[in-house]
């Protein structure tokens, strides 16, 4: 997009673009002189006629320039408008003249059709989102019944079933948030929440998997050293899902006591950084002591479908977890960074800017 606005169409530039017509006019005037002389017109009259002819040509050119200038400038404005192009094209003013009129008409028709298609796509996307939300709602009701059944039966033989149910629940949740992440609508609600209880909720939602894999969880760092809550702006449901994905990864790529000589562990911590400055933020970190990520893979771990060396060797990776984490964080305006040392640890950090919503809140 041009910062200077559309380029104006000067008369010189116009003549340059219509060189052929200009040359024709000059040739006409040049040929008229000997022609009129041969017809016996006197020199004074010839001069007058030549001036009239030249003036007529000039008037025609200026008139055409004035007409063309308006729609060329409009067309250039639309061409340079970037993301506003569709809105400008929809409102394009009718230009005078044949070419201008035809062109603005065509531009408006294209814009109207594009707007119709975007509208239809948005409506279809919203329908799809509704479908997924309803579907997830139904499945969760079934899962609730199944979980209560297993619990009421109180039979150790059914434990594997409750483990599988927990995994189904995690995948259902992933489908829901995948639909949300690719949605054009932003349906999260951001407000200040204590991060400790949200981290605890995420851990609870993965209790079966964590206990089964003998992974110890440390949440001590989720509150300040005096025990008070650390608060950050976020959508609680989204954040619980995000932390759940990070826990899933930490469980999947956990340390093996026999191989690595250390028992698997996840440390969740929140820290207030750059307090009192414009860059004040809360950093939530999820750190494991698992197999880590190869340095070559590290820059790509948040790409959709990327599984890397770990994903291929452990054969359980969908390549969706970190992609969803990155996408959802981006939507909420949170920063994500992944750091790791292969064979030792992985740490994912989520940064919540503190002041970003302060102004908006004051207006409420």
């Amino acid at each position, binding site marked *: 997009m041009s910062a200077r606005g559309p380029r104006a169409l000067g008369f010189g530039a116009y003549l340059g673009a219509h060189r052929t017509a200009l040359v024709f006019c000059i040739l006409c005037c040049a040929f008229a002189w000997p022609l009129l002389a041969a017809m016996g017109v006197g020199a004074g009259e010839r001069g007058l006629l030549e001036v009239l002819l030249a003036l007529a040509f000039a008037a025609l050119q200026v008139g055409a320039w004035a007409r063309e200038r308006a729609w060329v400038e409009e067309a250039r404005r639309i061409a340079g408008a970037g993301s506003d192009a569709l809105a400008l094209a929809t409102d394009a003013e009718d230009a005078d003249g044949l070419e201008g009129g035809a062109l603005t008409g065509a531009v408006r028709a294209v814009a109207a059709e594009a707007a119709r298609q975007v509208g239809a796509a948005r409506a279809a996307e919203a329908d799809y989102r509704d479908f997924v939300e309803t579907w997830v709602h139904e499945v969760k009701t079934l*899962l609730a019944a199944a979980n209560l059944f297993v619990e009421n039966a109180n039979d150790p033989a059914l434990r594997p079933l409750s483990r599988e149910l927990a995994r189904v629940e995690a995948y259902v949740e992933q489908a829901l948030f995948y639909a949300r992440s690719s949605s054009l609508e932003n349906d999260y*609600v951001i407000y200040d929440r204590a991060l400790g209880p949200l981290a605890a909720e995420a851990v609870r939602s993965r209790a*079966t998997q964590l206990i089964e894999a003998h992974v110890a969880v440390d949440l001590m760092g989720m509150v300040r050293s005096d025990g008070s809550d650390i608060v950050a702006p976020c959508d609680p449901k989204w954040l619980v899902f995000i932390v759940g994905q990070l826990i899933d990864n930490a469980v999947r790529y956990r340390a093996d006591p026999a191989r690595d000589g250390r028992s698997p562990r996840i440390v969740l911590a929140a820290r207030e950084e750059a307090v009192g400055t414009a860059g004040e933020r809360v950093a939530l970190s999820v750190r494991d002591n698992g197999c880590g990520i190869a340095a070559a893979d590290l820059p790509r771990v948040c790409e959709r479908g990327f599984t890397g060396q770990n994903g291929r060797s452990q054969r359980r990776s969908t390549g969706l977890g970190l992609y969803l984490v990155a996408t959802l964080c981006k939507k909420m305006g949170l920063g994500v960074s992944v750091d790791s040392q292969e064979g030792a640890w992985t740490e994912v950090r989520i940064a919540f800017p503190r002041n970003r919503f302060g102004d908006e809140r004051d207006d409420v």
Partner: protein
Amino acid sequence: MPTYADGRRIMARIYVIEDDPAVRGEVEVLLERAGHEAVCACAFDRVAESGLAARPDLVLLDLGLPGTDGLIVARELRQTSDVPIIVLTSRTTDVDELMSMSMGADAFIEKPYNGQVLLAHIDAVLRRAGRAGAAGRTMEHAGLVLDLSRSRASFEGREVDLTKNELRILETLMRRPGRVVSREELMEALWSTDSFVDDNTLTVNVNRLRQTLARIGATDYVVTRRGQGYAV
């Protein structure tokens, strides 16, 4: 105090508004095993009215109902009664939670939920509201009585206070008397109350529970089944 036919006293009458028959059935089993009386709604067109006619001590309300909305039902209940309401839902936006609370719900639980967590919420809400059942749920096995709401164990006339973790472990063991409860199950029970213990801490907690019970004479009440878990 109303009682069941078999003489057990009824803790609280709970009105269940849930349209899924499978969930409704399981919730009913869960509540009655915990000593509550469950009354279930079968039609949902004038459910608030029929619910209040049953004079419940507490209402469990699902938000997604056929032909009406749980939030509307919550408001109708609130207009004429201060009966405690616990909202259960599988909808997963925060707006529902905020709306439910503003409509006067006392607690909000997301599906799928853990049954013991639901019972704990019911206890807490009843206690807060000073309703029937606030006296507390109790369990009994082999001479030991566990008072869940006061977190006390009594054995042959002697009483002792239990810590949160001790209570949770003993409750989980007593829910399956005479049979083995695996370490994983005990850890899950503790984790569901945000006590994220690891393997070693569980062992320490179980040993502390043993010492506490020994103080009231219930020695060797909790037995270890090597490689399997624990049992009472």
